[in-house]
């Protein structure tokens, strides 16, 4: 009974409260300090390795914008691409003769777990999947990244200059991803791609429903998955409205109370604000279609679909809605949702106007050879009616990947003014025999196949008993 008493308060009391509030407004209330959320509390401290001004000459150049230039030169100054063309000349630069070699933009992997599932793969290194609740938008994968993962070095030897580290797919919403420059550092901050937008990992299908279903928790079905995302977006929508109201009232000179801060909702709100991009583990055509509508329901863009095994079934829809699809060339059969793989998936998605087809790895092994992964697709597609060329296939692992990560204005192609992220290959990079010989990030050489002084080594491997060169011979 006593609980009801407040609702029986006389109307006059309420009226007094309202009139007080109104008069306070008119009298210019004393405002508390405005509460703002620091959107970048773990800022990048990345600085390039010593940069060189370079003229790389006489190579076959794949620009990443769909062009191929033969016997072409690439001019780099102050860490940027200055010009790509034939017979360039300039003074005071290091000249690299690349006759017979191929040059591409630095390779970008949009889906990696390096650093969060690092080598060695021991118990204490399992840091990629916060499977304690189906929605963990509050976790940031950068807080798990171990920069000493030797996999960063092997990926660099494969030409990887930029990569997005994502949380795992055990949760409906797994947390924030982070985009890194592939340079050695003792902190993840030292690797963070300056000003790259954040990504947020979502996961469709079998993984979340298996993880939580086995605990008799929601979700245990695909409809449970959808209910879980929707509930999260309902909360996020309210949270966003609460902050907007707070800001509007404050702007009007009022002294409103700020909403209670919520880390998970901060991340979801930043998606609704268009600042954080969605990266959605989602295999099947039907589920991708649901996720597109989910984005429309809550007014955000559904972003990039990762592992889109069935993307070829909805290639038109993906292009129409502006979704990137990140895919493997041939992985399949490990789950029911990975059963309908076809080798030409990427090519079919790519063939539609305004598409964004990306080849990703999700693997410490294949990240070392994304060039080969793209090559397999190009050749299989060409056996089945396509006429794709090297200058097309390179986009899947450079420009389109940059687009997926929201950094295509900075990297992903050899375009004047962009970052000098460059790979020099010994031959056509879509050959099984191709090697990255030199790799540059922001015009700084981070890898040289023939010069040990440009081959970084993880602290972990340093000083381990090893075969010596004497033993090897």
């Amino acid at each position: 009974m006593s609980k009801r008493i407040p609702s029986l308060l006389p109307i006059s009391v309420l009226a007094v409260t309202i009139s007080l509030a109104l008069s306070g407004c008119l009298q210019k209330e004393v405002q508390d300090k405005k509460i703002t959320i620091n959107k970048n509390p773990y800022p990048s401290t990345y600085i390039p390795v010593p940069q060189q001004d370079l003229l790389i000459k006489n190579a076959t150049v794949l620009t990443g914008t769909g062009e191929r230039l033969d016997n072409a030169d690439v001019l780099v100054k102050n860490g940027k691409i200055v010009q790509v063309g034939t017979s360039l000349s300039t003074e005071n630069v290091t000249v690299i003769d690349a006759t017979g070699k191929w040059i591409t933009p630095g390779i970008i992997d949009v889906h990696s777990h390096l650093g969060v599932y690092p080598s060695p793969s021991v118990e204490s290194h399992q840091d990629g999947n916060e499977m304690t609740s189906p929605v963990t938008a509050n976790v940031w994968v950068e807080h798990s990244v171990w920069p000493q993962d030797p996999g960063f070095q092997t990926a660099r030897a494969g030409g990887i200059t930029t990569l997005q580290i994502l949380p795992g797919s055990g949760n409906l919403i797994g947390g924030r991803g982070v985009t890194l420059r592939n340079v050695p550092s003792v902190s993840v901050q030292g690797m963070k791609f300056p000003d790259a937008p954040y990504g947020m990992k979502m996961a469709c299908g079998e993984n979340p429903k298996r993880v939580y279903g086995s605990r008799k928790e929601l979700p245990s079905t695909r409809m449970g998955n959808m209910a879980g995302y929707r509930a999260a977006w309902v909360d996020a929508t309210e949270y966003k409205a609460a902050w907007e109201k707070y800001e509007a009232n404050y702007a009007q000179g009022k002294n409103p109370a700020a909403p209670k801060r919520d880390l998970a909702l901060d991340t979801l709100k930043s998606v609704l604000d268009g600042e954080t991009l969605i990266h959605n583990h989602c295999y099947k055509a039907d589920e991708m279609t649901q996720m597109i509508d989910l984005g429309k329901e809550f007014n955000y863009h559904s972003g990039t679909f990762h592992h889109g095994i069935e993307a070829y079934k909805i290639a038109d829809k993906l292009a129409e809605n502006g979704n990137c699809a990140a895919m493997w060339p041939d992985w399949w059969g490990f789950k029911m949702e990975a059963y309908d793989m076809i080798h030409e998936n990427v090519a079919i998605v790519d063939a539609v106007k305004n598409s964004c087809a990306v080849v990703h790895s999700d693997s410490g092994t294949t990240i070392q050879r994304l060039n080969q992964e793209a090559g397999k697709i190009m050749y299989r597609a060409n056996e089945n009616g396509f006429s794709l060329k090297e200058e097309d296939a390179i986009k899947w692992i450079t420009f389109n990947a940059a687009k997926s990560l929201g950094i295509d204005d900075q990297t992903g192609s050899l375009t004047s003014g962009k970052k000098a992220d460059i790979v020099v290959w010994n031959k056509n990079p879509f050959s099984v025999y191709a090697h990255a010989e030199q790799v540059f990030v922001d015009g700084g050489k981070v890898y040289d196949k023939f010069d040990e002084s440009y081959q970084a080594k993880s602290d972990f491997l340093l000083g381990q008993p090893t075969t010596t060169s004497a033993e090897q011979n």
Partner: protein
Amino acid sequence: MKLMKTRKLFTSSLIALAFASITSVANAESLAIINATVHTVTEQGVLTNATVIIDDGKITAINPVVVSADKIIDANGRILTPGLIGTMNQLGLVEVNAVSKSRDASEKKADITFDTSLAYNPRSTVIAYTRKGGITSNIVTPFGGEDMFRGQTFVVDLSGSFDSVLANQSAVVVDFGAKSKGSRATALQKFIHKLEDAQLKLTKNKEKEANKKSQKKEKDKSKDNDKKEPKRDEKVINELLAGTKPLIAYADRATDLLALIKIKERFKLNLIIVGAGDAIVVKEQLAKAKIPVIINAMSNLPSSFDTLHASLDNAARLTAAGIKVILSVDDAHNLYQLRFSAGNAVANGLSKEDALASITANVADVFGLDVGRIAVGKNADLVLWSADPFELSSHVDKMWIAGQEHSTKSRHDALRKRYMTESKMPKAYVK
């Protein structure tokens, strides 16, 4: 090794017809492949503009003076290799890894006798898909369960026919090395004890036999039970001791490899080591002990403290040390990529000849298969390639298993066709 089938072409082709995997039905026809660049994987090396004659499932002639065959295929200089051979995967024992009822490679209570050939499904879609990689036969390997012994391998061809199991119980598979519970010492110790006990029993039985002979005329006393048949698992250990059955041991760290070398020498086992992450550290010892190694050419991450020496050039360096190397892809769905693994091994220092041998002749030698080389008398498992078989850009033009031509078409092609076909009706009507 128990022989299940002696490649009776007639029966196999009749059954295989049901899968539509066979494009050429007239199996009685002899075939001449002319103008081929033949990678024999023998001392003959590579033969250019060569002719290979196939009859009754066998290679019957190479470069005969007169070419006489029912059917002639002009290779136009293209490369002909032996069919590639997979190892250490669960092809035919799994359709979809996460679908428990489509998996037959594991069994909690599996022991040394575990024979998964009984579960082999030649109609798995993974098999047709794997033919795209030019794989014609495979050593199927069980996962096992809690025991150190995973069970026994069996040998199949990739015809997809119901009698494609060529031999079952072909080798024993055992796990050594790092353990998440307990010590790695236990498995080694248990194994040594098993071998010692079996050896002792065999010696005792021999002595008893000898005694019986000398006491022939004495009346046999009550202990007639001496003649007890050994148990099934004991028989398998006895086969290992007799060297009639190979032992495939998973091990990586150098100490484990050295322990296995000792065991091999002491008990005269026919030993093959898989994984062999640290092989490079003890390569002289492995070469001296003549132990073949089965490795994944793409392993180069220090995924555990047992594999700090994983490297892309290990295949080349172990081969250079005189070790017989087999390259393996241990995941059934990715087995088709075996040729790309070989290509990457070449990119990292292995010769093309050695790389081809590592996925053909070396496997045949280690597992006693009558394939893996292009030589007169060998089974006609052959692949005609559009170009360099290790390159991403090449594909299988034609392939023969036991002389029978097989298609590389799989369910994946049907899906591609459906979604690349324009239709006013929903795609479900496109078949």
